[in-house]
């Protein structure tokens, strides 16, 4: 008997499974008892089983390595799941729907009447300086006014137990395939737990995604042609692109497979000749999407696809320009945005965010930089940010200069103490910090994945969960405790 919950150190943190040492939370009791009764040998065996399942299933992600170029790595996975009580989850789900609904209204407004700017709720100056605002999209509104069809929002919990939205990814959020594959792995590793718990299934996602995409088709036909547009095999998320295409029965294409005809319709090159495409689930950033309009050097994109989209001959998910609403400066305004469009208070909390563009707030950030997290507005994957308490005075000074030079590009937040969950380290468990990325699909109605992708910082004390920087993941179980 190897896992002793009595010596599991929760400390001043909030742990997702364990309340205080030796006392699991109600919904985690069954799991913790089960784990406690496993021998070292069993734990090693189950861990190996998970790793072999990951290997056999070919779950990989790509990292860029200085010396070896880009390489495929097996997906780091922890066998202890992260549990959330269904009752709590239902509130989060409603909150996410509210948030994404408001964000879509916001994007549509920005590209059209800009009422929110005229009403003084969102500063005109910030909009002017936004790097992700695409002038090409002005005056256009996609069907149903929906721009961000697929959103991945990152949630964290602090040491008081409050759930916050850390950021919204409205461009090409990735990770959902790992959520799906993690569940497959867990079913192989802990089948007993699936009998003892009511674990809400996650596998609806590919068909929900398919239905949502199919409903966007400009042609009213029974089987619209849907394609997943990938930048190609060297992209870090290529595994996911191929996986989703396969799961939906859609064609996986690269830019050169597609061509825009004189009729402003999109076609793909097949062995039967050119064949019309109705919906493109694109996993390429705006900047590379159409060399006629954006980066003329781009070989990843499709010349003319913006023309075809504006003519209404093809649907693009997510719509170009959606990124205007996911930079870290806009984030600070989300509670106001929700109130403005929906007349409601935000259900999910925002992390208090200081906008360096405001002189008062900037002064506060410069003063307190050592205790704050500073983020550039437009980077993703944890790049280019400063974690004050973990950085040297030299780095603090460097960021002070960066902020003064380009204040619009930076926001800062107090350092949240993220919640932890028991994570296997050899054959023992130790607390590791984690977050959660649910995915929200917006079409005729809004659907949220059951749970999402839990990312965990495998390094002790670290809060960096990105897979590109040593993070791993856990399966996420939304457990229905009614009648248990």
């Amino acid at each position: 008997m190897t896992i002793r919950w009595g010596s599991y150190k929760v400390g001043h943190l909030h742990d997702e499974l364990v309340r205080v040492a030796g006392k699991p939370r109600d919904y985690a009791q069954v799991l913790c008892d089960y784990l406690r009764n496993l021998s070292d040998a069993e734990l090693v065996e189950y861990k190996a089983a998970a790793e072999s399942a990951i290997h056999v299933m070919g779950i990989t992600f790509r990292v860029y390595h200085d010396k070896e170029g880009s390489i495929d790595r097996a997906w780091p996975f922890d066998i202890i799941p992260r549990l959330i009580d269904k009752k709590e989850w239902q509130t989060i789900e409603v909150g996410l729907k509210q948030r994404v609904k408001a964000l879509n209204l916001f994007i549509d407004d920005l590209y059209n009447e800009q009422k929110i700017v005229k009403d003084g709720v969102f500063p005109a100056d910030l909009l002017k300086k936004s790097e992700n605002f695409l002038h090409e999209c002005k005056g256009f509104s996609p069907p149903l006014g929906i721009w961000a069809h697929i959103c991945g929002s990152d949630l964290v919990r602090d040491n008081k137990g409050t759930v916050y939205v850390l950021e919204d990814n409205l461009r090409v959020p990735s990770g959902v395939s790992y959520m799906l594959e993690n569940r497959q792995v867990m079913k192989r590793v802990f089948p007993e737990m699936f009998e003892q718990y009511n674990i809400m299934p996650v596998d609806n996602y590919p068909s929900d995604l398919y239905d949502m995409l199919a409903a966007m088709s400009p042609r009213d036909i029974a089987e619209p042609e849907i394609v997943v547009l990938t930048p190609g095999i060297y992209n870090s998320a290529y595994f996911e692109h191929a996986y989703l295409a396969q799961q939906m029965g859609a064609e996986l294409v690269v830019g050169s497979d597609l061509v825009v005809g004189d009729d402003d319709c999109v076609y793909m090159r097949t062995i039967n000749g050119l064949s019309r495409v109705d919906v493109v689930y694109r996993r390429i950033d705006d900047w590379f999407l159409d060399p006629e309009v954006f980066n003329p050097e781009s070989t990843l994109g499709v010349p003319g696809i913006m023309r075809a989209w504006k003519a209404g001959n093809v649907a693009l998910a997510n719509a170009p320009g959606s990124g205007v609403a996911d930079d870290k400066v806009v984030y600070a305004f989300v509670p106001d945005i929700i109130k403005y469009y929906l007349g409601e208070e935000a259900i999910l909390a925002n992390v208090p965010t200081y906008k360096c563009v405001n002189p008062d707030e900037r002064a506060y950030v410069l003063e307190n930089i050592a205790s704050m997290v500073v983020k550039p507005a437009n980077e993703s994957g944890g790049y280019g940010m400063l974690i004050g308490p973990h950085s040297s005075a030299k780095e603090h000074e460097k960021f002070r200069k960066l902020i003064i030079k380009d204040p619009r590009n930076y926001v800062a937040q107090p350092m949240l103490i993220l919640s932890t969950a028991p994570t296997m380290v050899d054959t023992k468990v130790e607390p590791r910090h984690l977050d959660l990325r649910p995915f929200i699909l917006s079409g005729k109605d809004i659907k949220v994945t059951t749970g999402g992708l839990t990312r965990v910082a495998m390094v002790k004390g670290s809060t960096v969960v990105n897979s590109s920087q040593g993070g791993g993941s856990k399966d996420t179980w939304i457990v229905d405790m009614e009648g248990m």
Partner: protein
Amino acid sequence: MLSRVANNLCWMGRYLERAENTARLINVNSNLLLDLPKSIVLGWEPIVDILSFRELYYAKHKEATERGVITFMVADKNNAGSIVGSLSAARENARTIREIIPREAWEQINELYLFAIDNCQKAVARRSRYEFLSKIIESNQMITGILAGTMTHDEGYEFLRVGRNIERADMTTRIIDVRSASLLQETETEQSAFENLQWMSVLKSLTAYQMYRREMRLRIRRPDVLKFLLLEDRFPRSLLHTVQQAEQCVRTLPNHEGIVVHIKALESKLLAANPQTLIQEKLHEFIDEMQLGLISIFDAINATYFYHE
């Protein structure tokens, strides 16, 4: 099916076949050299010629030494026709269509490539050469088996087979062309025993020796070998067989009429030529014609499926 995917499958088939054929060729040449007297200087140059790498080779090497040629044909990453180069290309083809081919096949291709990279130096030393080359051949046979046994025999599979058969046809004609040219005329009796040996090696390069013996029980003679390698439609590496296979594959694909015309043209020339009676010079011309025919077939496939507008 996407043109790009079909094209990748076709080339994956070609490159895998090329790696195997090159391995066979080197294996047989190694054996042959051990049997020939020192007075017959055959050496390794023919291998470079068979694969049309004369220029590329001599740009880097002064002489066609054993070490030089083997390194060039097995391990040189910059030579797209080397075993490592072919497997690397096959792997890249497979990787971009991982969702199309069975996972096991991808894993085997990946593993074979990694094996070749890690072990290619083994091909240089005579002692370990056979083991290395056999592994390349066997692994490729296994991949062919996995694909045949687990991949849906749909259009994609046919593209793969077309590629394999065109490549095989190409290699068969190359081996006949270069080997027969380097063989000495039947004048001196002493050397004709060795000539026998060399025709045997031609057969062995195409794993045709055993099957030839079953078919033609007589001693090994040039006309019989040529007839067998070019016209025996039941032998899977003969030119006629590979061309007929390519036709069968193509007929399952859309818009194949234009391609079949090219295949039929080659086939009727082949059947009408009586190549076994051709003297060396004429044989060379004939093989040239066959090669041009193969190129025109492949061009027609390219134009019909891959690069149409």
